[in-house]
């Protein structure tokens, strides 16, 4: 029996030890999602005690600040309708979103030295202050992007390919976070979902813009495709299904196939690449990941390679089928082509300062993924230059800057095609990558390409 008692002792101690381990998980490892839950009134209490830090754009323009009115802070968003999806909001009624939510602990001075400083301030009855964020966003460009979208459903992402700094992340329609409490009921009922961050959370079929990825996969598998000739009779029969093309393109090489956006060629390439090859390429571009830019991004999705039929494979290769990605992901595809296959880690926050103005976090520019070789990306880039020069993306050409790009007109169950454009500029020494989408707005070449061209021209004119 003594043996059994000893076993019982170990069991009881083991149970209590499990509690210690679980408690450590709850208190130390489990993140701030509990703290940010709208039913948790602790942050709201802190909100009343601490002066929340400000959020600035890359040039120091305030996008969110706390105005003090006789001791009580009021959150103001000078960016108004142009920045709500990136900045987010803080509301005692409707919770918090965007960077306001993701960087709560810094903005409220709950991290590092600020935490100690504020604890002392609290004990001494002094004012408690949070830290500031300096973003990579350029407010003027962001504003222009929103104007170009003009209230239509869509999104624009503009990124500096050398650093990964996101200069524009626009989602349209916007809303005014300054009036959140009054318009909330309206916002949640509106059909065009203004609260939804299309740039990061959108799930769209990329259409022909995805041919860039298919081309990268095919060239990676056998570089010989760069000089091979394809034949386009205007259709392709896969497993008995007839895949029609816009026109019979005849004999053409890969570069021209990109320029004129030949479905037959890319469906064939997809079939040669195989489900696993296409899936590997999808992953190589990081399309299946949340690149952790500061706010949540919806990872892209593709049919399971194990269950991919030939028709699904051919459709996926031209950006249709079950394939769904976000505009941010497509900007990263363009960035890979612009930067010799290397995608720099995308980010929204350049630096975090504590309440005294000392920098506590500084964005580091480092490669995130290598999606393709530089030879592959140069071949594709040549095709994208041609697309703007004489192909489907001619509307992206603007004086003052040479643009390369790829259009997409993605079929979807909601009506007209989604208009896509992904591109890079300036062509010789690429510094910027862009992705534009307008939902159900028609062809990418006619609708999305001019917006991208104008925005790239403006950005280059500003010295980016």
């Amino acid at each position, binding site marked *: 029996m003594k043996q059994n008692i000893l076993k*019982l002792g170990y069991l009881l101690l083991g149970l*209590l030890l499990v509690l210690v381990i679980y*408690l*450590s998980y*709850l*208190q*130390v490892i489990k993140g701030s999602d*509990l703290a940010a839950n709208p039913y948790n009134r602790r942050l709201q209490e802190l909100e009343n005690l601490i002066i929340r830090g400000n959020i600035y754009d890359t040039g120091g323009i305030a996008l969110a600040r706390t105005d003090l009115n006789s001791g009580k802070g009021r959150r103001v968003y000078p960016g108004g309708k142009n920045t709500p999806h990136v900045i987010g909001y803080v509301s005692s009624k409707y919770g918090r979103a965007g960077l306001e939510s993701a960087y709560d602990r810094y903005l409220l001075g709950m991290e590092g030295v600020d935490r100690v400083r504020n604890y002392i301030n609290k004990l001494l009855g002094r004012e408690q202050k949070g830290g500031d964020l300096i973003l990579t966003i350029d407010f003027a460009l962001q504003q222009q992007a929103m104007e170009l979208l003009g209230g239509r459903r869509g999104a624009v992402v503009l990124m500096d390919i050398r650093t990964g700094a996101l200069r524009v992340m626009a989602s349209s329609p916007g809303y005014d976070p300054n009036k959140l409490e009054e318009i909330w009921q309206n916002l949640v009922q509106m059909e065009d979902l203004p609260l939804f961050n299309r740039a990061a959370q959108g799930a769209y079929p990329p259409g022909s813009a995805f041919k860039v990825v298919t081309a990268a996969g095919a060239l990676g598998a056998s570089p010989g495709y760069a000089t091979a000739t394809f034949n386009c009779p205007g259709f392709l029969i896969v497993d008995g299904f007839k895949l029609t093309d816009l026109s019979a393109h005849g004999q053409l090489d890969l570069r021209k196939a990109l320029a004129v956006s030949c479905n037959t060629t890319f469906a064939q390439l997809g079939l040669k690449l195989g489900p696993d090859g296409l899936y590997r390429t999808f992953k190589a571009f990081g399309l299946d990941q949340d690149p952790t830019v500061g706010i949540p991004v919806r990872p892209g999705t593709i049919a399971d390679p194990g269950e991919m039929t030939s028709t699904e494979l051919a459709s996926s290769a031209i950006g249709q089928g079950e394939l769904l990605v976000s505009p941010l992901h497509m900007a990263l595809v363009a960035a890979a082509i612009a930067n010799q296959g290397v995608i720099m880690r995308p980010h929204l926050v350049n630096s975090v300062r504590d309440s005294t103005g000392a920098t506590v976090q500084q964005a580091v520019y480092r490669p995130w993924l290598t999606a393709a070789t530089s030879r592959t990306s140069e071949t594709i880039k040549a095709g994208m230059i041609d697309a703007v020069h004489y192909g489907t993306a001619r509307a992206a050409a603007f004086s003052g800057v040479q643009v390369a790009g790829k259009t997409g007109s993605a079929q979807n169950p909601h009506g007209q095609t989604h208009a896509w454009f992904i591109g890079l500029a300036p062509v010789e020494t690429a510094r910027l990558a862009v992705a534009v989408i307008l939902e159900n707005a028609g062809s990418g070449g006619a609708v999305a390409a001019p917006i991208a061209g104008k925005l790239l021209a403006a950005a280059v004119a500003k010295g980016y």
Partner: protein
Amino acid sequence: MISINNSKKNSSMQGKTGRHLELKLILMTGVYMMTGMLLLHLGAAGSPEPRALLIGLATVAAFLLVSFYWSLTGYHGDCLLLPITALLCSTGLVFLFRLDPAYAVRQFVWLLAGLVALVLTTRQFVNFRFLSDYKYIYALVGLIALVLPVFFGSEQGGAKSWLDLGLFSLQPSEFVKILVVLFLASFLIENKAVLSAGTRNLGCLSLPGPQEWGPLAVMWGISLLLLVFQKDLGAALIYFSTFLTMVYVATSRIFYVLFGLGLFIAGAGVCFYLFDHVRSRVETWLNPWQYIENTGYQVSQSLFAINSGGILGTGFGQGYPEYIPAVHTDFIFSAICEEMGLLGGTGIIILFMIYVFRGIKIALKTKDEFAALAASGLTALLAIQAFIIISGVTKLLPLTGITLPYISYGGSSLVANFILLGFLLNISHEAYIDI
């Protein structure tokens, strides 16, 4: 000669020097508690609390007095259990003051009653063995006490397990649990041979006859009774798991445990479909966020509190544990975790671990099996109760409304656990004095 010398040395360790160590440890506990009381006096929890210092001092004095009384009467009970209990009680008292002083004052009165009960237990039941002869009598008394609330009880916090006695209300199940352990200890030892070996064969299993397992089936029935009629899920769970552990310790037969667990799972499954209160507990446990506005509110507020504590806690009086409904009873552990952090919460758990360690040590030192089984049963009872409520408030297991021993507000629970402590000490007293 040598053995006599040894025993003298040993008994003096547990006797006079043991009591000396006990006094010293209680004094250190007093410093710990008075720090908290001083903070309360200065207004750490809002308005300054003038009664805190006085009640703190009186509590330390009461514990010291008990220890002093034992050293006068030459009592040889374990010298670490009382200081551990004092630490747990003072943490409870300090936090009750911080949460709601009215509860703290009442708890203080109950604490004094508990200490009186402790002294009486160590006086009247120091030869606890005679209880073994009357086991069927107090089993009957216990059963009646348990059933009473079904007819005359009042409902508190969803469980109909309270007897309203005018001035205060009593929860019989808290006291009956000790009787259950003592009853099981003597019953299991008496029928150990039969239960372990079995008298008849059923295929490859040898099973005892109905007269041996009959009372055990009654135990199982009592657990279900508690569960169904009084909606006291926590008590049912404690009874049943203590019962299983004791059966295993006595018979070494894992079959009984598996069989019991099977029955329990079957019973729980039936209850899940038959009774709304059981189903809602389980559903709330699986996804409290879905029910955050009603049944999930309490446990999600508890998780917020615990999570906000971090490693060091927000500091005493700096958190918002009052957002949790019933924080002073079932959820006091969450308040401790919020304001004292992982270190504070772990500290409490470690105290229970030392308690278990000492309890098991006492069980191993006893000479006969009845005392050994009783000691391990009482230890298991306390540890299981602590485990069930802490896992409840942290959402490791479904929440069942029971108290955290010695810490939570609750008179019946506090006094009963002091009586439990008394019996453990009596067993150790006997073991140490006879060496």
